[in-house]
């Protein structure tokens, strides 16, 4: 086996060194981090083994609360994945040049989150071996089918968006990195698909980038709108709302933007990219988060004010549980800690500095997860049909350790995927500009 000496690696520019060095050296901290994530996943796999072995009875899900934290988590992951389209489409099409260094991070998060969302749906199935019945017993009238179609489509699009963004830099890795293992060299050679910076290649890549930038937007809106329709087409209080589509989409953009800020801070710190992810990026992301939070606040008011004004029937019971009942602490944490307080704090410039905004975005992300819990569970527990003569366990939902272990391990899987992708590819474009028509392209094959 060839001995690798990292010190032998030559870089052409300081920028190249800064952005590529983490691909060739592996710190003990990184190994421990990976080890921790794998350990959490092993516990999750054991819990899943128990679920497959004994059935969904090991969970707290019963006839009424038939969607538990798995589905809350699924909605959360789908929400986070929307951040890819925010950067690759909305900000890009609006010529927000400042956001270009963040496109790749957003795509890495989007790809990882949508993979985890797809997996968690399979985990939620009591009989995963019957998954293909969804296809063989295909019924186009079912919102579940719409969701399966749109998630697989968005998964492919997210991969393509990430690939479009990193292709020129994979070629740089192939051409520059000498002190890496052979498997990695082979990997870069295959995935670089003969990229040689030829003007025709750049022109074509630029064209597909623009097409995808436009095409991803309706798909991104559709994925979370269809996810909201899974609820809106089910007869439960809190879901009988025409507001649900935009409510979900706006919440997703807000959660995704917070996730990006969170990731930016960690990546900047760990990969020492202070010169590339600057305080100005945090400041602009903070302003963007304020805008997205305001939109989400507007839909929140629409979602709760009407039913809360009337407080009738089972809708009123469900809202009482949220406002003053058993979910009150969680509800007010989500609304105040995850929405209103971040919104107010981020209006002050000092709070848009990296560390304060990192803490604020953490609160937003946590609020976003618990928000999905509050959307799913309390509504399921309040049925329009009277609940009579059922087992006591049907009336409450407290997730079991198996559900928590699987849910926590899905987070570990998300972080593991993000970590691996960051370890494989440069997170910031090596050229100071992303590939576009204005970039002067020079062939670099000598």
């Amino acid at each position, binding site marked *: 086996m060839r001995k690798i000496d990292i010190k032998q690696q030559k870089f052409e520019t300081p920028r190249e060194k800064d952005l590529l060095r983490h691909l060739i050296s592996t710190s003990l901290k990184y190994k421990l981090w990976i080890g921790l994530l794998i350990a959490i996943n092993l516990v999750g796999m054991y819990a899943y083994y128990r679920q497959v072995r004994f059935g969904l009875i090991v969970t707290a899900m019963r006839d009424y609360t038939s969607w538990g934290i798995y589905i809350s988590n699924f909605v959360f992951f789908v929400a986070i994945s929307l951040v890819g389209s925010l950067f690759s489409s909305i900000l890009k099409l609006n010529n927000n040049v400042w956001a270009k260094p963040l496109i790749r991070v957003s795509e890495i998060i989007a790809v990882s989150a949508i993979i985890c969302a797809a997996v968690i749906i399979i985990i939620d199935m009591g009989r995963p071996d019957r998954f293909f019945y969804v296809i063989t*017993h295909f019924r186009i009238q079912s919102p579940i089918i*719409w969701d399966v*179609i749109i998630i697989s489509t968005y998964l492919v699009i997210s991969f393509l968006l990430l*690939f479009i963004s990193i292709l020129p830099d994979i070629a740089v890795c192939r051409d520059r990195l000498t002190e890496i293992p052979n498997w990695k060299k082979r990997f870069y050679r295959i995935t670089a*698909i003969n990229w040689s910076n*030829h003007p025709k*290649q750049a022109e*074509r890549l630029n064209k597909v980038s623009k097409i995808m930038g436009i095409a991803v937007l309706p798909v991104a809106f559709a994925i979370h709108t269809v996810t909201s329709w899974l609820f809106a087409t089910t007869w439960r209080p809190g879901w009988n709302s025409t507001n649900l589509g935009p409510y979900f989409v706006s919440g997703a953009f807000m959660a995704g933007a917070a996730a990006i800020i969170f990731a930016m801070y960690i990546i900047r710190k760990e990969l020492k990219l202070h010169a590339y992810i600057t305080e100005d990026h945090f400041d602009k992301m903070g302003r963007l988060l304020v805008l997205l939070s305001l939109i989400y606040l507007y839909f929140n008011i629409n979602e709760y004010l009407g039913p809360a004004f009337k407080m009738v029937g089972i809708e009123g019971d469900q809202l009482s549980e949220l406002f003053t009942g058993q979910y009150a602490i969680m509800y007010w944490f989500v609304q105040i800690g995850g929405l209103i307080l971040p919104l107010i704090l981020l209006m002050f410039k000092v709070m848009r500095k990296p560390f304060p905004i990192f803490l604020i975005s953490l609160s937003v992300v946590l609020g976003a997860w618990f928000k999905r819990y509050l959307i799913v569970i309390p509504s399921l527990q309040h049925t329009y049909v009277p609940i009579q003569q059922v087992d006591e366990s049907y009336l409450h939902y407290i997730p079991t350790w198996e559900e928590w272990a699987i849910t926590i391990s899905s987070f570990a899987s998300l972080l593991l995927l993000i970590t691996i992708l960051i370890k494989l590819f440069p997170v910031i474009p090596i050229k100071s500009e992303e590939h576009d028509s204005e970039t002067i392209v020079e*062939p670099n094959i*000598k």
Partner: protein
Amino acid sequence: MYAQDDMQDAKVSLSFSEDTDTKTITATVTDQNGLAAEEVELSFFVKRTFSLLKIGDGFNETDEDGVVEVAFPSDLPGDAEGNVTIIVKILDNDLYNDLSVETIKKWGVPTIINDDKDERSLWAAAANAPITLIISVTGMIFVIWFIILYIIFSFYKISKIKPLNL
């Protein structure tokens, strides 16, 4: 083993009474000697399309005369003539074997079900999905996957472009 040997067959006889407001099912349970069976738990059901609907209170236990009465809901749909199937069961009793007694009564609300399973609708079988839905969903899938395949084809074309100095 001993418990099973001691088990005996009970007999359940049903009678029905109704006045203007209420309909009542009276079940009388006797043991194999014809004596009233006291404290026997009975379950009352009405047969529905897919399963049995439980009626009565949570616990319906016979009194010292072996009798238990259960009110029949006045708003349950029956068939076109109002017939409903009432089922009374003894389940998991310590002394008596499981038993099921079934009677048809004209106590339901006459309901004519339009057999529209052959019509195209959102709730029909897959083969009878609404045409507009099929066209719109298929159209959207076709457009977006055409773009995806075009992008993949573009990557293929990119891979075939030879470097300038070769």
